[in-house]
């Protein structure tokens, strides 16, 4: 499954967990009430654990996710094939027709007029990577294509009334 599919699954599991907690607590409220002071004593103790757990999760998530940053990857990839992509209303200029399989490529992306988004979708329609295309700035996106087929590029930053038609494609083989 794609990365997004996995994330959606995790999200789904967390939704079910949250709903289970919320519904359980709601159902507990039906019937005779319990003295709040007692509830508070135990709940505050639990809350302390909950806080430390969340803080730990936050720090762990931070430490793990910063291992996978897309920044600087382009600079680090040295001899990669570089393509200049120029985005303008409503086309992407500079894309090659064919990109070799398994080769690290760097897209140097900019725009002439407004903000655009350079987003690459694999032949199955999964979003593989994206970067902003800005007037006056260059963003470098490093990607390696491991699947043969027709890749689609879509604009992913609203750029005017033909935004949804702004696309290009290239083949990987």
């Amino acid at each position, binding site marked *: 499954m794609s990365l997004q599919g996995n994330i959606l699954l995790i999200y789904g599991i967390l939704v079910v967990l949250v709903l289970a907690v919320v519904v359980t607590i709601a159902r507990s409220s039906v019937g005779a009430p319990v003295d709040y002071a007692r509830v508070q004593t135990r709940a505050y103790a639990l809350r302390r654990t909950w806080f430390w757990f969340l803080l730990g999760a936050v720090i762990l998530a931070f430490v793990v996710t910063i291992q996978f940053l897309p920044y600087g990857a382009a600079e680090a990839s040295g001899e990669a094939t570089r393509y200049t992509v120029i985005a303008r209303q409503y086309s992407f*200029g500079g894309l090659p027709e064919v990109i070799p399989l398994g080769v690290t490529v760097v897209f140097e992306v900019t725009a002439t007029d407004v903000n655009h988004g350079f987003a690459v979708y694999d032949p199955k329609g999964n979003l593989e990577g994206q970067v902003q295309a800005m007037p006056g700035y260059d963003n470098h996106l490093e990607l390696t294509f491991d699947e043969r087929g027709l890749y689609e590029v879509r604009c992913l930053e609203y750029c005017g009334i033909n935004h949804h038609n702004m696309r290009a494609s290239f083949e990987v083989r």
Partner: protein
Amino acid sequence: MNGRFAIGTGLLVAVGVALIGVGLFRPWGLPDPHESIQAHHLQHFFLVSAGGLLGIALARFLAGDKTPDRDRERWLVPAILAPVGVMFAMWPTTYPYIEAIPLLHATEHGVFIALSALATFSAHRFARPIGWLLGGFSAAMALASSLGFGVAPGPSPLIAAAEAAQAATAETADPEALYIQNCAGCHQPEGAGLPGVFPPLAGNVPSLLAAAGGRDYLKLVLHNGMQGPISVGGQAYNGAMPAWGQLGDEQLAALLNHVSTSWGNQLPSGQEPFASTELAAARAEGLTPQQVQQLRQELDVP
């Protein structure tokens, strides 16, 4: 007013005056405002900060440390509008006469100090902490302006490089590929356009070529773009076509020939294919997109 209060007020005045000095005389290697708009904004930041402090000092001096007056709400009007005025005063267009006439330049600086002082004075009269807050925000806005209001990087060098590369390959450019890359995004691969949004080329270009002035119009639209309402085949359009002057005359001629002879289109009898020389001649006529639209309105086409 008591001693501590007086000392505090005096301190505000002293720091305010010192900041004006820093702004005007630029010690410690601060950049010359004449060098760049950024440096100019920085100078104005010092003046705005100074004005803010002086405004609070004046409010303290006039009101003492008594509680604010009952009718203090009216002070909110200048309190809110003056910081907006400060931002407008950061308007970065260079006016030569401000440089040439020192009195005007001094007045401009006076405006910064006065507006900022008005902001904090009024806010302070409404409520003391609000005076400090609005002063802080005004100064922060003035400082932040130096990062982007009136200063921007030029177009990326990648663009010029790409255009040069494209011009170099002009002879070998395939018209179909040129069309797909540049025009199909709006006019669609088969020249059908998007009803109400982007006019069709199929069936439309021959009518334009046949009309008096139509051939010239097509060249001008590619060079200059077009914007504004037009009617094509009874359908209204109100869009904007970007200019394509960055493509070479060879390529523009190839494109025009492509759209004139594809999808059932044909050049009218008596008309030759487009040549790069006539595109070069049309390039000299620099029109605005609105002027091109005017031309389109004058054509006698369905």
